[in-house]
């Protein structure tokens, strides 16, 4: 994302403007990080769902469940409750991340308004 000035501008940049620009940059970075984390959380949820479905279909009583680097032999019910626990944790995390993303997008929109208001064409706050 570029924040270069154009060649005809005479608008002075105050310390407050600089702090706004810095904050915008920080928010933009965090936004990308959160979007990546959301993608991973969604994929994890899908995997857990697939695992849950496989579990229902299987007729074995003992399932090999990965703990650390090994596959422990765990009774089916325990695996079910473990998967449920993991799914709940991931879903909660996903909700938290989506909320954070919304907040960041709102803050960035507000900053855009302020900065475009002062600098108009001299500043570019879009993704290239």
């Amino acid at each position: 994302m570029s924040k270069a000035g154009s060649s005809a501008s005479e608008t002075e940049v105050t310390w407050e403007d600089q702090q706004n620009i810095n904050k915008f940059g920080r928010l933009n970075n965090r936004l990308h990080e959160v979007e990546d984390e959301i993608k991973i959380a969604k994929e994890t949820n899908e995997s857990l769902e697939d695992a849950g479905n496989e579990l229902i279909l299987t007729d074995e009583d003992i399932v090999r469940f990965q703990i650390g680097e090994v596959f422990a032999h765990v009774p089916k019910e325990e695996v079910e409750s473990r998967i449920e626990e993991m799914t709940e944790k991931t879903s909660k995390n996903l909700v938290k991340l989506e909320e954070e993303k919304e907040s960041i997008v709102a803050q960035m929109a507000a900053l855009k308004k302020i900065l475009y208001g002062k600098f108009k064409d001299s500043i570019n706050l879009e993704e290239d």
Partner: protein
Amino acid sequence: MSTSASLTERRGIPAASFVEDVQTYLSQLNLDVNSALAFLQERLQQYRVVEMKLLAQQRDLQAKIPDIEKCLDVVATLQSKKGTGEELIADFEVSEGIYSRACIEEAESVCLWLGANVMLDYSCEEATVLLEKNLENAKASLEVLMADLQFLRDQVTITQVTVARVYNWDVHQRRLRQAVATPSES
């Protein structure tokens, strides 16, 4: 908003000084425009080098944390089997693609790899305490690192804006000089 104008550096990273007025800035540094731009570009390069280093450290820490959590999981599982007299049967990888079965009875202690070719025996409780402390330290280090990266990125932004302003100021001065040199006809 933080008044980081008072910070001259953070953990070895020099802060970029905010320029109130380009003219004053140039005369204070006693540099012409091109030298000032060269100096600022060099600063940007230095910042990039530090950024690469910090990003690498961040990646390492972000990989370490899930590893420690997995270890805690294993120790917790072994501990939960202890009183029951049940044995834990686990399939583990002997070599790539080859697995074997292990039967773990009454895990009195676990061995923890401490690094530097050192592995120590711990009781399950001690192992849990140690691993949790490591996890806490790793998370704290990661937080400090992220703050460092934020500070660094702010300095990069300030420097980039300064470059743009110095350049624009120069263009503006040239235009003024041209206007004086070729007076318009009245």
